[in-house]
């Protein structure tokens, strides 16, 4: 980024102040991405793109205005500031409760996320070969089944920002990320198909490919999918059983049923027509939602994480947030607006996915706190149960209360041992039922990557979600018929 961009950001803030706003923030935001897409080992194409612009947000007469521009000149940003101010002012008469922001200790800092092996240190030929090799290993891994399709996509990106606010924040940052996603379809015509979507993503560089180990594990996974088609039985659905929920599903559960309902803007109804409201009401801090094993943390500061940041889009320093603590609703995710409404301080949850997006309350890296048991200890006293390791289908209602996860790889547990595959078990429970049923947690904390969607226009932001394997007692399962 050139210093010119920083000058423009300061100029936007100055222009807002000249127009008499209560608050103005400006953010230069550039994202660049290079993606190689393959199907069954053959290259479809290579796409290299970027977007770059300045976002402006103003508070005027209690109304909030936002605008953005990719015209990176003084005139361009002045026009953006004027549009934001004019639109906010025109709507101030419709405001019942004037919007205000909390006062915060704001950052003046610059940081960069580290890469051990930069994007340019790996040739494009090697990147293509890496993807082609996934196909050659996977397509030969099955005997009776056929791998009908393997779409694999390797994507390197960077996100560069400079933020300035009229009350003193100044933050520059640069975060590179690497992603590898795939969709594999395994079929035996007489038995059906199994499909798996998955993606790895983290901040860093090409050192991550070794950590992810796709060449090693995906052929084994595909073998398992063949076995599901050939051998898997119906899971027990006629009586309550114990369910060991694999860390991949636990990660999704905490994202969906702890992280989202803990977003204070959702609790206040700001997303009510889009992603919905929350079962958590403003006065529910201290409410018991689960057992003493249920602690969920959201932490943007985990080095190398997909949702990594040290200051949010409002300049507030990031820290771990303990959303559920030992089974009790403990803390909400706040930006400076929700913090002002609740009479508290922001905990730096304001994020935007690019220069076109207003900062809104978001998660970063959400995880279930691990315990100290081993996986073997977790299943050893289960007489009859199911271990659900991975999933495909999932959803949750718009208040984040009723949730459903369709198991992909899942096993029957009998007398403390895994006893073969079961097909399409479904965990469909309320949030309180899930967290209250947790009676043991192992120490195998793992993280999974996702793009979390929220806002209007929709803003996808990179996140991690994770957890250990957890054991639930007495759960009625369903099955996808």
């Amino acid at each position: 980024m050139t210093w010119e961009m920083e000058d423009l950001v300061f100029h936007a803030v100055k222009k807002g102040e000249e127009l008499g706003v209560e608050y103005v923030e400006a953010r230069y935001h550039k994202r660049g991405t290079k993606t190689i897409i393959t199907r069954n080992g053959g290259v479809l194409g290579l796409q290299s793109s970027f977007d770059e612009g300045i976002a402006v947000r103003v508070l005027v007469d209690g109304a909030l205005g936002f605008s953005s521009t990719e015209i990176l000149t003084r005139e361009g940003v002045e026009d953006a500031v004027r549009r934001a101010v004019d639109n906010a002012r025109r709507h101030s008469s419709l405001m019942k409760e004037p919007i205000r922001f909390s006062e915060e200790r704001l950052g003046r800092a610059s940081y960069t996320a580290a890469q051990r092996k930069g994007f340019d240190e790996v040739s494009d030929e090697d990147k293509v070969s890496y993807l082609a090799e996934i196909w050659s290993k996977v397509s030969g891994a099955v005997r009776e089944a056929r791998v009908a399709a393997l779409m694999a996509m390797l994507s390197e990106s960077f996100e560069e920002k400079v933020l300035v606010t009229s009350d003193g924040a100044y933050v520059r940052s640069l975060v590179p990320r690497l992603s590898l996603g795939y969709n594999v379809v395994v079929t035996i015509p007489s038995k059906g198909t199994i499909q798996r979507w998955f993606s790895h993503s983290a901040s860093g560089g090409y050192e991550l490919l070794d950590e992810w180990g796709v060449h090693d594990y995906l052929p084994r996974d595909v073998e398992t999918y063949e076995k599901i088609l050939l051998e898997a039985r119906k899971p027990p659905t006629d009586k309550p059983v114990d369910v060991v929920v694999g860390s991949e599903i636990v990660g999704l559960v905490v994202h969906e049923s702890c992280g989202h309902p803990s977003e204070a803007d959702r609790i206040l109804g700001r997303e009510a027509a889009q992603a919905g409201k929350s079962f958590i009401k403003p006065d529910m801090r201290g409410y018991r939602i689960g057992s003493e094993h249920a602690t969920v943390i959201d932490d943007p500061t985990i080095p190398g994480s997909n949702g990594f940041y040290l200051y949010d889009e409002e300049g507030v320093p990031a820290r771990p947030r303990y959303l559920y603590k030992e089974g009790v609703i403990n803390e909400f995710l706040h930006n400076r607006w929700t913090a002002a409404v609740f009479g508290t301080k922001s905990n730096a949850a304001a994020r935007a996915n690019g220069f076109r997006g207003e900062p809104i309350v978001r998660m970063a890296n959400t995880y279930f706190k691990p315990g100290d048991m081993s996986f073997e200890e977790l299943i050893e006293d289960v007489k009859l149960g199911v271990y659900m390791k991975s999933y495909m289908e999932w959803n949750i209602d718009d208040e984040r209360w009723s949730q459903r996860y369709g198991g992909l790889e899942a096993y029957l547990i009998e007398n403390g041992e895994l006893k073969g595959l079961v097909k399409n078990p479904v965990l469909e429970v309320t949030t309180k039922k899930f967290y209250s049923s947790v009676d043991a947690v192992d120490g195998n904390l793992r993280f999974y990557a996702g793009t979390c969607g929220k806002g209007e226009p929709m803003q996808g932001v990179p996140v991690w979600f994770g957890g250990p394997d957890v054991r639930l007692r007495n759960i009625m399962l369903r099955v996808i018929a």
Partner: protein
Amino acid sequence: MIRDELLGVGERIVKRGLEKGFDEVAVRADYYDAVMVKFANSEPSVVQSWREREVGVYVSKNGRILGTSGSVESLGDVEAILDKLSGVADKIPESMLYAPLPEPSEISFMDNLVDDRVLGVVKDPSDVSELIVEAVQRRPIDYFAGMFEAAYTARALVTSKGARLFEDGTYIKSYIRAFAGEGSGQWSLGSRRLDKKKIEDMAETAARYAVEARSPVEVEPGVYDIVLSPMVAGNLFNYVTRMASALSVLMGMSIFASKKPGDKVASEKLTIIDDPRNPELPNSWSFDDEGVETYSKPIIERGVFKTLLHNSKTAAKMGGKTTGNAGLLSPHPWNMSIPAGDRDLEELIGDVKNGFLVTNNWYTRLQNYVEGTFSTITRDAILIIRNGEITGSAKKFRIADTFPRILGNIEALGKNLYDIYWWEVELPSRLPYVLVRDVHTSKHTG
């Protein structure tokens, strides 16, 4: 002025691409000028506006396919990326999808895609905001949320084959969710034109459903006849329509993977049309990203699978001709239309002994795209139907079924059409209420 500017950008990049040694270049340059008012708790929560020009570039060299995109203001950066890509082209294998860009064809342009009233709202949306605030609160609701967007968009396409095309249009997109007691109702609208009466109708429908669903009761999951509102049918059939993209089939993301044109895939009551030539729907355009004239065509016609959506590349790969659905890289549908049936909503409800009218849903996810196994969760008003009459409202449950089964069990369609466009119906859609027999539902077990 926008026309000349966008075409000028296209020509400049095509020239640069050819100078850099690419065999083919296609450039799409877009302009977007929009305003969006977002509401929460019956007041504006933020007013957002955007004014931007973007460029997307497709290039090929010796059968390699590459692309880039960026801001028109940073054309220097776009050109720098092009320069880099010209070095990359020799280092990657030929694309399995490569086919030459088509020769330019004669384009018949649609009239009246720009509505001056929408242009006025882009400049100052406050009148429409006030209308929505007033209209939705005519009924006894507690509060509402939602959004209203007005936009002017323009697109130019320049290719090294000689295409030099420009088209512009306006659209509005709006949805309102009203809350009353324990109930809520949501409705939406998408159109190239501003019709204040339709905005009032949308707001009033949301409020009416909220009031009707004020006191929902628990119901047991099971197999029911369900009348899907255009919001719900729009969401589910958007998935089916996207699965008709030939790239979805190639990627293993489609229920049409094992089908061929002529196969029966749905009830004979159902026709689904990819509808770029409907000038009232927001994504109507006269040409695609390869410069091919668009045309409206059935994906499913009276229950029979008719058309996979192709660009010239997927058509060459799979055998067939382009259907005018090219994006710069992959084929996609434009708008979705489902022609009306012959029943009033009251008649559809009257034909249900034990079931529901489901007015909205969200979070549709698939266990398996090839088999079409999915679940989706209802939200907002669910009206209980017993012996052909609405007897109350229900709390949320899931529809957990398969697309092939839903398509096959369509019994009847309503005779009124609605223009739907929102978060969960991302493809602008015109469709009626749809009655489906024997829909499998599910709910949490504890």
